[in-house]
């Protein structure tokens, strides 16, 4: 995936003079600091429609400072890394007003690496935004009862009065039989590993905007008291990803997976995080 065209931060800073558009810098008077932790420091001064760039260890007097590593800085400049995401992932930090940094896109023509497609003949505007809206989710009585159970370290399932299948997290009705689920049973809390999604890539959690640490394991556990497809969905203890064994049922032939137990959070609030993860029940 290393498609950086052999570009270094030096190449990008050296090309700034050629990429500068005086008309875009009208009315801007700022000093920008760049601390590329594994490559050096640069100071960009923009004033009266002119600019200068200096490689210097002294970043005092900068209005705003950007701190990142070479791979991230190059990636953003050649369009391979999204700056906002690098920022939210902690790969890039800004000291000072981030909007000041956004001004640089006004007075610099986009950096084009040798071998990259040539820049378009026209400036094409691209707006980057983050939508962030507060939400409130009503649990309802069924999900509420289940989540409250977690507070007291109980995993509850709801049972279909017709087909007898268990659902956990529970649903108010069995969508297969189209009847209201009525009976509650306690399942687990220990069980047997069925399948793990060994995730090397994580997308942002839309509830927080934060991206999870990788790798992580999303797992399906057949909790004691459940059968067939009634698996429970949660996470595996991160340091045990390579130690577990998956189980399966292939046309009636059963292969047993690792035995697992939940690790409960100390502070339980009635949510999925009341269980930190499952770990091997040795």
């Amino acid at each position, binding site marked *: 995936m290393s498609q950086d065209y052999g570009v270094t931060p030096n190449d990008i800073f050296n090309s700034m003079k050629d990429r500068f558009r005086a008309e875009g810098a009208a009315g801007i008077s700022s000093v920008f600091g760049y601390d590329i932790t594994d490559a050096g420091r640069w100071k960009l001064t923009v004033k009266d429609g002119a600019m200068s760039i200096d490689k210097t260890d002294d970043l005092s007097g900068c209005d705003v400072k950007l701190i990142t590593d070479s791979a991230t800085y190059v990636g953003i400049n050649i369009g391979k890394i999204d700056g906002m995401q690098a920022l939210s992932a902690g790969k890039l930090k800004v000291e000072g007003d981030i909007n000041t940094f956004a001004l640089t896109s006004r007075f610099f023509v986009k950096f084009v690496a040798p071998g990259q497609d040539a820049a378009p003949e026209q400036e094409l505007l691209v707006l*980057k*935004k983050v939508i962030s809206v507060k*939400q409130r989710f009503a649990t309802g*009585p069924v999900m509420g009862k289940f989540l409250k159970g977690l507070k007291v370290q109980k995993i509850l399932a709801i049972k279909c009065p017709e087909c007898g299948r268990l659902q956990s997290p529970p649903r108010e009705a069995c969508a297969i039989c189209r009847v209201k689920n009525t009976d509650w049973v306690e399942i687990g809390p220990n069980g047997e590993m069925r399948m793990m999604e060994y995730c090397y890539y994580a997308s942002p959690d839309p509830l927080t905007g934060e991206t999870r640490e990788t790798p992580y394991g999303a797992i399906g556990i057949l909790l004691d008291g459940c059968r067939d497809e009634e698996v429970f969905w949660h996470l595996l203890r991160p340091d045990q990803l390579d130690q577990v064994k998956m189980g399966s049922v292939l046309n009636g032939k059963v292969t047993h997976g690792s035995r697992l137990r939940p690790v409960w959070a100390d502070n339980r609030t009635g949510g999925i995080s009341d269980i930190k993860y499952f770990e091997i029940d040795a």
Partner: protein
Amino acid sequence: MATFDTSDCYVVEGKLALPYTYFAGRVGSTFITTLRDQRKIMGVKCNACGKVFVPPRQTCERCMEDIRNNWVALSDTGEVVNFTVVRYDDKHLPRKAPFVLAMIKLDGADTPMAHIVEGIDPENMTEGLKVKAVFADQTTNTILDIDHFEPVK
């Protein structure tokens, strides 16, 4: 309505937070960069129906004509054809309430565009008011590169 036991019902606070990007395209970019760099408001004219659209568009939606190259320079003055007074505060709104959002038909255009009117007490706003664009000092690469409109003195 039957009552039911709500003792297990509660509310969980959440959030929807996701990054997104908007590509303005050639026509939209030309409109904004001209506004930003030259302080000129441009529209496009449909040669089939004769209408001048602002903000501009690539296609006349009525005639399905390609009008992307038919640029015409418009005046930075126009007339309020409709307006409302925004009287509540929300973080997504461009101004503190109360403020005036108006539909302004620029001189030379056939379609009105929405923008903010300042420099007049909201209670004194009237349709037909002549207004003039005030350009923003700081660019956002959006229609807010026109900061607001104000009454022509």
